[in-house]
């Protein structure tokens, strides 16, 4: 068990919370599910929260979060109009909406069509799968919590999220969007969604994951995405955080990627109070092409931590981390990108770049590349920059007549746009772009860019 500096002992109210929740959680009536939750909770108590000396949490302290008096998510209703701006407008899309972690069937659509139209496509709410005691579900869930207390806690309380299974060579007729809305309730809630995604060999999926904070919600979402990508399968996973600077999202995405698969994750964090985007990608085959793109646009007292680990376990794959940040106000952002190349993973190409634009003298960026390379025939590189807008570029735009504010905004837009262009789904990139332009000084003048 880790030492005291390595872990934070869960406060007693977590046990009370768990006891209170258990009877109402999905799958409560089935013994295997109940046992899984109890075992996971015990593991969480043993592992605790990451402590101040945990290297992977060096720049994001969880202590204040663990002191919050969190309750359980209460039923909340939203009108469709409130979430429409965050839904992608695509008649072929399957859209699942979760309000404070609870599946909102009335706001979701396309689910039955996705299930019936295509062979080998199965998309359902995780709660439904748990109620049914789905065997895949019960087998997959505990695989994520070996050393991570937060994952064990997610397991114990899991409710909400999706189970997507694509058989070999299956593909849904359109993208699958998961929209998680965090709304204010009397007691700030601990929300524990899990997305389980399994792509068979040669399967293809466009997955869109959106998170939105509304109404000044101070909820804490402890999310886990667990995604398996089969041989030569293709996954484009776009993640977007919009809405107010409020609440917390601690999100972990674990990928296991088989040979010849292509995976691109692109994420943009534009909202949220405390956001942790954790990625653990296991490259478990040769010929894999893995692209991880990220944009974080921080302001106010926002805190955004991007913690990435790419683990090359097999030879001959390529990975690229491309992260950019625009930091304003007193916000703090972290980019900690780790590349591991195991001894047998010869002929690996692994790259990483992180560039940051500082718009305010009080903003802070901590950027930490980490390479652990045990193979000798590899190409790896990393580079990080942080600075203000380039004087030469600003001058160029001013000589064309643009006033300094418009010039700065245009350059900031261009800086961020390089990430948005890499998104899999154009509608998601457009949502992020609109928010980006809205925030730029003199953005109205640049409205047409969005």
């Amino acid at each position: 068990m880790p030492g005291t500096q390595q872990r934070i002992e869960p406060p007693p109210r977590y046990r009370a919370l768990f006891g209170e929740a258990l009877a109402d959680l999905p799958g409560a009536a089935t013994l295997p599910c109940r046992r899984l939750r109890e075992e996971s909770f015990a593991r969480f108590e043993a592992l605790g929260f990451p402590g101040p000396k945990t290297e992977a949490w060096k720049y994001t302290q969880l202590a204040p979060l663990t002191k919050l008096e969190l309750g359980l998510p209460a039923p909340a209703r939203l009108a469709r109009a409130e979430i429409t701006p965050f839904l992608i407008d695509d008649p072929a899309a399957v859209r699942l909406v979760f309000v404070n972690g609870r599946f909102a069937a009335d706001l979701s659509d396309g689910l039955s069509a996705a299930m019936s139209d295509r062979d080998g496509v199965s998309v359902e709410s995780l709660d439904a799968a748990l109620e049914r005691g789905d065997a895949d579900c019960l087998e997959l869930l505990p695989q994520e919590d070996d050393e991570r207390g937060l994952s064990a806690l997610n397991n114990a309380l899991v409710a909400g999220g999706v189970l997507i299974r694509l058989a070999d060579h299956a593909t849904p007729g359109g993208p699958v969007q998961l929209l998680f809305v965090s709304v204010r309730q009397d007691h700030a809630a601990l929300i524990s969604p899990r997305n389980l995604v399994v792509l068979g060999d040669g399967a293809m999926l466009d997955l869109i994951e959106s998170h939105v904070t509304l109404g000044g919600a101070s909820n804490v979402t402890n999310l886990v995405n667990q995604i398996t990508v089969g041989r030569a399968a293709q996954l484009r996973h776009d993640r977007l955080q919009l809405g107010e600077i409020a609440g917390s999202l601690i999100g972990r995405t674990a990928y296991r990627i088989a040979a010849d698969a292509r995976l691109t994750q692109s994420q943009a964090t534009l909202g949220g109070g405390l956001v942790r985007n954790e990625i653990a990608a296991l490259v478990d085959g040769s010929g894999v092409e893995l692209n991880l793109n990220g944009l974080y646009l921080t302001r106010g007292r926002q805190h955004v931590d991007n913690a990435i680990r790419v683990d090359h376990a097999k030879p001959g794959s390529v990975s690229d981390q491309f992260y950019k940040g625009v930091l304003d106000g007193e916000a703090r952002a972290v980019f900690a990108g780790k590349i591991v190349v195991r001894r047998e993973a010869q002929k690996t190409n692994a790259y990483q770049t992180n560039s940051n634009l500082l718009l305010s003298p009080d903003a802070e960026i901590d950027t930490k590349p980490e390479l652990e390379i045990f193979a000798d025939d590899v190409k790896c590189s990393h580079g990080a920059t942080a600075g203000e807008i380039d004087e030469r570029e600003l001058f160029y735009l001013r000589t064309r007549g643009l006033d300094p504010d418009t010039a700065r905004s245009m350059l900031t837009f261009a800086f961020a746009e390089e990430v948005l262009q890499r998104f899999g789904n154009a509608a998601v990139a457009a949502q992020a772009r609109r928010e980006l332009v809205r925030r730029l000084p003199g953005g109205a003048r640049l409205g047409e860019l969005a």
Partner: protein
Amino acid sequence: MLSIQGLRVSVEDREILKGVDLEVGAGEVHAIMGPNGSGKSTLAYVLAGRDGYEVTGGEVRYDGADLLPLEPEERAAAGLFLAFQYPIEIPGVANMYFLRTALNSLRKARGEEEIGAADFMKLVRDKAKLVGIRPDLLKRSVNFGFSGGEKKRNEILQMAVLEPKLAILDETDSGLDIDALRTVADGVNSLRDPARAIVVITHYQRLLDYIVPDFVHVLLDGRIVRRGGKELALELERSGYGAFAPAEQAVA
């Protein structure tokens, strides 16, 4: 139009321009030639208003008024244009949109009405045709992924659209093969106008085969050491800049 007298400029406490005199009238094309480090680009940047260039002496008058207190965008609105040696890339901002934003910024500063998207489209297509540039550059992001030649051509297209009174072309020939050079030169020539002055800054005589200047000035170590007509460029091509070094003493 442009009158420079005794201009002295320092960058980080090092004097680069050591007393430059230059008179440019409407309709004239001037070439400023000099080797690397002679102060050519410094002169271009000072005229366009870049930060970090300290004017320690002399004056620059443009249309009779002091140019130096003006911000770069004010100079642009007054009709001054600098074609850059290394134009910057702006990913995600379409060339067409950028040009319209630039033109409308100038119009707004001059108290003129802004141009709408449809009218602008027609204008920019006409201009692209005038300077011999394929309109497909217009749809792409500003200079992003452009070849060296495309970037230079794009500078000339900007010049055509913004219609400056005084255009300064900084090393517009650098990095161009002969075909690209000819395209760029043809573009510039199509913009020659009795109301417009053009200052071509170059290291090599080559460009001046295509953009034939009315006057040639040789800049060496921060001073103009020789002046003449277009034949001076040919002389320079034969003798090299070394032959002009002793003249420095004569001028000083």
